[in-house]
């Protein structure tokens, strides 16, 4: 194994191949606080890519209710049980992961520590939907964080910097594109060994029994190549998603939307960084959930991320609040943004203006009684 740098762990780690970062890395930020689990993203993906034979059960994009929702069943719990330690050393300037990654924990004869879901584990795509973490009794009033909670976790392939699917494939059928970091299964080369299914801790590679090959999210690369965000992003009703490009921390640019959220303000965090894949989908953690839970899922930065996110609105953090307003505002990929007073502007890969949004949406309050039509209306905020 080679030694590579994983900035999410704050240290080097072992990986099957030497470090080879792409020219640009596809990345995304999902704001969990805005997701309503309408599954429009799931259907947008399904109808675009997985409507064929053998793809019936596949959800390259899914939204599950945490803590009791999974697709496939127990995808995260199973590996968390297998992975020892998972302690973070927070005594220094930056947190350093002190446990072992799935590459460092690979048992004899294996390339990564992994497991394969059983067929039945795919049978309940929305198990645990809206199930609360605790009982809500009569007379209960909610405080923050909620004592009984759930939240929606939208998931796609993380197009990891160190993909476990790629490391696990014994015949090199999975590759990471040097031009954008998107991870793909070569459908001409794959022989359906399902080693990638076993290796991916997020269980985002699916075996197609009709084609005999494994298939996965392709980050809608034909769209990304045209500077357009993937289908699950642009169809998102809650406008929770933003796709773009992420830099290494030492090369982060404040005017790059993804860099700003991940590296500068650190409010968007990776999913299970302790697995060691350096995943490139980042989540703004839910603010109402006890951080004892979300810290395991998003790493040690959760408390600071929530604090910064809350301040964006309550204390007039106009840059952060403004950038969050660009989510879901355009189909184009924004590689640069600016705020000029009350106006936030997003620019595409060519440097052209893609969209302009106000810092605050104008609010109009109508009188309840409409004199013109002589009727009374109910105002909904």
């Amino acid at each position: 194994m080679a030694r590579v740098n994983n900035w999410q762990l704050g240290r080097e780690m072992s990986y099957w191949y030497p470090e080879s970062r792409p020219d640009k890395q596809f990345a995304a930020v999902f704001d969990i606080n805005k997701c309503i689990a309408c599954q429009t993203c799931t259907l947008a993906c399904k109808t675009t890519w997985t409507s064929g034979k053998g793809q019936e059960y596949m959800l390259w994009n899914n939204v599950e209710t945490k803590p009791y929702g999974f697709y496939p069943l127990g995808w995260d719990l199973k590996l968390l049980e297998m992975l020892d330690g998972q302690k973070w050393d927070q005594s220094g300037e930056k947190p350093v992961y002190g446990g072992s990654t799935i590459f460092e924990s690979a048992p004899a004869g294996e390339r990564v520590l992994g497991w394969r879901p059983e067929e039945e584990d795919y049978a309940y795509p929305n198990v645990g939907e809206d199930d609360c973490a605790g009982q809500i009794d009569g007379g209960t009033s909610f405080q923050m964080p909620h004592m009984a909670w759930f939240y929606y976790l939208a998931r796609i392939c993380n197009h990891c910097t160190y993909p476990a699917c790629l490391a696990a494939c014994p015949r090199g059928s999975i590759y990471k594109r040097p031009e954008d970091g998107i991870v793909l299964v070569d459908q001409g080369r794959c022989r359906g060994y399902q080693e990638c299914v076993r290796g991916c801790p997020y269980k985002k590679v699916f075996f197609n029994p009709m084609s005999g090959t494994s298939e996965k999210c392709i980050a809608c690369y034909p769209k990304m190549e045209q500077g357009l965000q993937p289908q699950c992003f642009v169809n998102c009703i809650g406008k929770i998603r933003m796709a773009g490009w992420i830099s290494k921390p030492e090369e982060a640019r404040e005017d790059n939307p993804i860099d700003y959220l991940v590296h500068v303000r650190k409010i968007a965090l990776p999913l299970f960084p302790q697995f060691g894949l350096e995943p490139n989908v980042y989540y703004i953690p839910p603010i109402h959930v006890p951080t004892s839970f979300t810290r395991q899922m998003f790493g040690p930065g959760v408390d600071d991320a929530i604090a910064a996110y809350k301040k964006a609105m309550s204390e007039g953090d106009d840059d952060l609040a403004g950038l969050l307003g660009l989510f879901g505002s355009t189909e184009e990929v924004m590689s640069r943004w600016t705020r000029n007073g009350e106006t936030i502007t997003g620019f595409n890969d060519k440097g052209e203006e893609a969209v302009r949004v106000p810092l605050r949406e104008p609010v109009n309050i109508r009188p309840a009684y409409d004199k013109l039509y002589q009727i009374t209306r109910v105002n909904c905020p």
Partner: protein
Amino acid sequence: MKTLFKLTVVCMIAVAVLAACRSRTISPSEVVAVTGQTITDDPAAGVWWGLPYHPAKLILQDLVEPRLMEPSTQEVEVTAMTDGKTVAFRLEWIDDSQDDLPGPQKFIDGCAVQLPQKMETNVPAPQMGEDAKTVEIAYWRADWQAIVDGRVDEITSLYPNASVDHYPFRAESLKKDPKAQGEMEQRYAPARRLGNSRSGPRKQPVEDMLAEGPGTLTRTNAVSRGRGVKTPKGWAVVIIRPLPEGISVQKGTNIAFAVWQGARRETGARKMRTGWIPLILKEPGK
């Protein structure tokens, strides 16, 4: 009276089979392809019982990751014949279950025959060959056999109770245009569109490949054929391929075998295999 007659016939067949089994000769150290035979792809053909068989011991693939950590199939029984142009190998091994339905976490029974591409003194590494020392592999799979035997190319063949709301290529608007329908279907089947031999309907349960080391399998021109049947104890498979160039009664080559048990989740590199075994040609009765 009818029952008595049937019983007599069954007994006669059983006695004949037992007699044939007793008369089979074992070739303990080499695979013998008997010359001058009429090639058959029928694993149950009587001709096989008159030919010497080699009990090839299988060992774990434990050289490259992912490895097989626990041994499964212990032995594959190999019988061979040739007509001077092609050579047929009959492989038989014990396997309790029939695994020919692909799916998530479901794997397929299979076997393979491997020969060096060139007859050289220095043979390639037995583990799939090595750089510039190519091996030829003929690979049989139980799911391909099921397809050749008539399994329909529909999800209901794998999951009989499956219910599909809609396939875009089955839209009413496309029904009058099979070409457009086929093109639409391939949009959702990239492996088929790319001609991946793992994928889709097929006419042969055997695939020809070349390799120059682990992880280098490449499809090559289809020259082999075969047929496999489930026996009460396991599988019996015949793989027929061209006779290796340069082989003769005077000069043999090497051969290796591999077996996968789907129920043991064996796939790809997770397999039981042999090292090189001498392959010789021998005239009948000699």
